[in-house]
């Protein structure tokens, strides 16, 4: 073996040994500390009844259900808000990104101003401001605003939806009673605040990505399309955007992943997502190691799954040389 190859092997063996040594030391110290402080370990707590209630979400959770059901309900809440936020963000971000290329100076300026305002303020602050604004500006439930069958108040948005009544699905319309609005489905102000905050923040980033993608397409393409008599909208749809996609998709996938991770900020406005449920469980059972590793495992899986899905999308949209 050459000397450089032997050195390379030596460095790698040292690295592995050092890492293993650090790992063993960490595990032994943690085990000793946990034993000394009387902290129980193990994932058995997941089957004990949870001491709290997960207020909202489609996942059926009754008070007294076990911890793992609470975690599942939290995960369902995270996915629920993430999927809606990704859908709205894509629509809004694309619109604003395209608007930044408009001929109208007012439209261009508004899009640029939107991006500058919403990108430079922390997401946490935006979420808190949205929550306080919704709670302050919306009327109490006795004076809820009504638009057709929709009711909007401090307690959220009620709308007609399918409801499981007496062993069959029925379409239920919310009705106003003396003190409440019953029936149908409802969205809490926490959900609405989280959705609005996440959407507006991520749409600003997506708009920047779309804008740089459109500008990355060679100017000659749009000039040739104009020479052929295509309108600006037709040029955008048939010539510019398909080519811009391959520049837009990689950063856009990163932004989708960021959105899913940013939904963990729900803990600050009281929306019971996965991190919030894990935090409550951690405070109740004291199993810090298990709860935090559960959070990390779930988010890692979500990130890898989303990255794989979007990598497939990227390969489909990739530039195929003729």
């Amino acid at each position, binding site marked *: 073996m050459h000397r450089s190859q032997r050195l*390379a092997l030596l*460095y*790698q063996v040292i*690295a*592995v040994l050092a*890492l293993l040594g650090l790992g063993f030391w*960490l595990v032994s*110290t*943690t085990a*000793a*500390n*946990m034993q*000394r402080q009387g*902290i129980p370990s193990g994932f058995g707590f997941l089957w004990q009844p949870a001491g709290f209630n997960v207020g909202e979400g489609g996942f059926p959770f009754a008070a007294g259900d076990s911890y793992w059901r609470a975690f599942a309900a939290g995960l369902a809440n995270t996915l629920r808000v993430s999927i809606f936020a990704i859908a709205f963000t894509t629509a809004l971000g694309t619109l604003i990104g395209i608007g930044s290329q408009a*001929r*109208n*100076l*007012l*439209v261009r300026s*508004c899009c640029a101003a939107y991006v*500058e*305002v919403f*990108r*430079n*303020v*922390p*997401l*946490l*602050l*935006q979420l*808190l*401001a949205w929550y*306080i*604004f919704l709670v*302050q500006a919306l009327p109490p439930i006795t004076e809820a605003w009504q638009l057709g069958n929709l009711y909007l108040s401090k307690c959220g948005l009620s709308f007609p939806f399918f409801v499981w009544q007496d062993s069959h699905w029925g379409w239920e319309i919310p009705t106003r009673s003396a003190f409440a609005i019953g029936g149908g489905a409802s969205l809490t102000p926490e959900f609405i605040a989280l959705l609005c905050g996440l959407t507006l923040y991520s749409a600003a980033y997506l708009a920047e990505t779309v804008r*740089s993608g459109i*500008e990355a397409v060679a100017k000659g393409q749009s000039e040739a399309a104009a020479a052929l008599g295509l309108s600006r909208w037709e040029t955008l749809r048939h010539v510019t955007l398909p080519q811009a996609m391959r520049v837009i998709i990689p950063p856009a996938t990163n932004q989708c*992943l960021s959105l899913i*991770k*940013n939904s*963990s*900020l729900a*803990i*600050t406005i009281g929306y019971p997502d996965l*991190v919030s449920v894990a*935090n409550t469980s*951690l405070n109740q059972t004291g199993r*810090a*190691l298990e709860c*935090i590793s559960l*959070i*990390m495992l779930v*988010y*890692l899986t979500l*990130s*890898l799954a989303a990255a794989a899905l979007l990598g497939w999308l990227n390969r489909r949209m990739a530039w195929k040389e003729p």
Partner: protein
Amino acid sequence: MATEVSTALAPRQAPARRQATLPWLREHFFADTGNSLATLILLALIAYALSSLFTWGVQLAIFQPDAEACRALDHAGACWGMIAEKIRPILFGRYPHAEQWRPALVLLLLGGMVIQTFRRDQHGWPTLIAWTGTLLLSFVLMNGGVFGLKFVTTAQWGGLPLTLLLAVCGVALAFPLGILLALGRRAELPVIRGLSTIYIELVRGIPLVSVLFLASFLFPLFLPRGMTVDVLLRVLAGFSLFAAAYLAEVVRGGLQAIPRGQIEAAQALGLSYWQIQRDIVLPQALRAVLPSLMNNFISTLKDTSLVTVVSLYELTGALSLALTGDADWRPFYLEGYLFIGAIYWCLCFSLSRYSRRLEIRFSAGHLTR
């Protein structure tokens, strides 16, 4: 035959604009029906928004710290008096009232260093030494216990100085680690490459909140018996470990931009791996991704607001702290959030303008618009 010599007239001054006002307006605002409609609708919306904002924020607002007058408004107007009343708890957190000149001095020091750094073109060892000295001085000032300064625990640090210290120290600590990780990810040794990739992908896949929980709840369990580390240092360590992974990806982009011929030429000259990285690769790579590095710093500055979840009361948390305990001023959260949002916006916007200026200066031909 007489020849005439003609003298050329002086050239006329070029017109200041290519278009008169009316054609310019028509082209930009009223090009066709759709555009005209869009202009009118947007103008109406902007006028409505600005007028209601003016009514709420200026006309009906109260500027004196008068809690009863503010409550009488019932949210019809803004209560800026709350800011006047609570500005010291918001800016400085729970820092003792008599010692608040120290965080104010830290703010001035950090602000002055930032302005000086942005004004000068060349940076070398003097800048590094100046920054290290400033950070050490800031920590000494905030902590106290020496030179006759009263000792203040890190649990009482808060507000804007804490935000800036976390951001600057977090990035400063993350930078060496991030560069090492980026170099490791491109190394030829498979073990090093694998370990770097695993670390980067692991840390980039989890939210910052979970890393802060890890730092706050689990770091004490990892330490041997009897050894305790301050909560601020734990959070700073977690924050830096998180930022290092994202920084590594940015630096890796820069490393990929270096032509391979540079490294091969350096190897032909007999330079060692570390000499090549230090003298040839890294200076070019870092300069190439300077705008992305600035973006990363802006993101880190915004991420410092998350340390509220682990009970470190930086700017966002200091507002909650100032208002929660005080029933008189508790209804006026929105004004507080607008004030803090304005502070963050000014900081981040000026950083992004500066990053744009750097990009133009360093692009040398390959500018991305």
